[in-house]
């Protein structure tokens, strides 16, 4: 059945190489593949999960300090009001991005094909990394802007 030029099946040519015991590298990859779903559900998600609470928790802290700094009957103009609300929107957007990263993985792959395990591992890592980076960038921008707003209004009372 196995000739050097391969076997023909419905227009495809299948060439089979030598069968060998599993290499240590592939053994490790199989283990990684088996643990991939549960691991991606715990390690990467934990960061996103804690960042969701931190991002949403930052909003009442920011608004609380702002209420403490600003006089009770202080009237905000539209532009000033928008600037003060902007960090809140950024914190909310960051929380939404972290929630996307926190979502369970919806992907299917075969545990019998090394290339598929590697491809899914790559997709999981890049998705979580992208969510973590964008979310953290938004969180930093929101924090900086919030700090700036608080410093700018520090003498208002």
């Amino acid at each position, binding site marked *: *059945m*196995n000739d050097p030029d*391969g*076997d*023909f*099946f*419905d*227009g*495809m*040519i*299948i*060439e*089979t*190489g*030598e*069968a*060998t*015991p*599993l*290499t240590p590298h*592939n053994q490790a990859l*199989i283990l990684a593949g088996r643990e991939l779903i549960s691991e991606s559900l715990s390690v990467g998600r934990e960061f996103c999960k804690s960042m969701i609470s931190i991002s949403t928790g930052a909003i009442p802290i920011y608004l609380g300090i702002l209420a403490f700094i600003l006089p009770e009957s202080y009237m905000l103009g539209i532009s000033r009001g928008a600037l003060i609300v902007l960090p809140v929107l950024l914190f909310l957007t960051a929380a939404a991005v972290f929630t996307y990263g926190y979502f369970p993985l919806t992907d299917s792959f*075969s*545990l*019998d*094909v*090394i*290339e*598929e395990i590697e491809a899914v591992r790559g997709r999981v890592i890049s998705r979580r990394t992208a969510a973590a980076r964008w979310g953290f960038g938004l969180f930093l921008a929101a924090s900086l802007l919030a700090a700036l707003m608080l410093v700018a209004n520090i003498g208002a009372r």
Partner: protein
Amino acid sequence: MSKSPPQITVNPCPNCQGHHTFPLRIRRSPVMSLSGEANQPGPRKFTLLCTCPKTGQTFQTELTVTPPPSERIVSVEPDPAEEEDES
């Protein structure tokens, strides 16, 4: 030439030195080229993990699948529903 379901033959098996046949499930998809023949997908190489039916141990085998013209190979995996043993 064969029109039977795709399969690979492992001979000898690295675990039991026997002879096994593993049916494959190959997913293919048609490709359309916008710039002539230059984008014709080439052969794809896979490292397949098979389980020796005698010892139950897993081994690896490399295979290269060349698609028919205007098609590409999406994935290859052993078809457990049709597994047979010819040791």
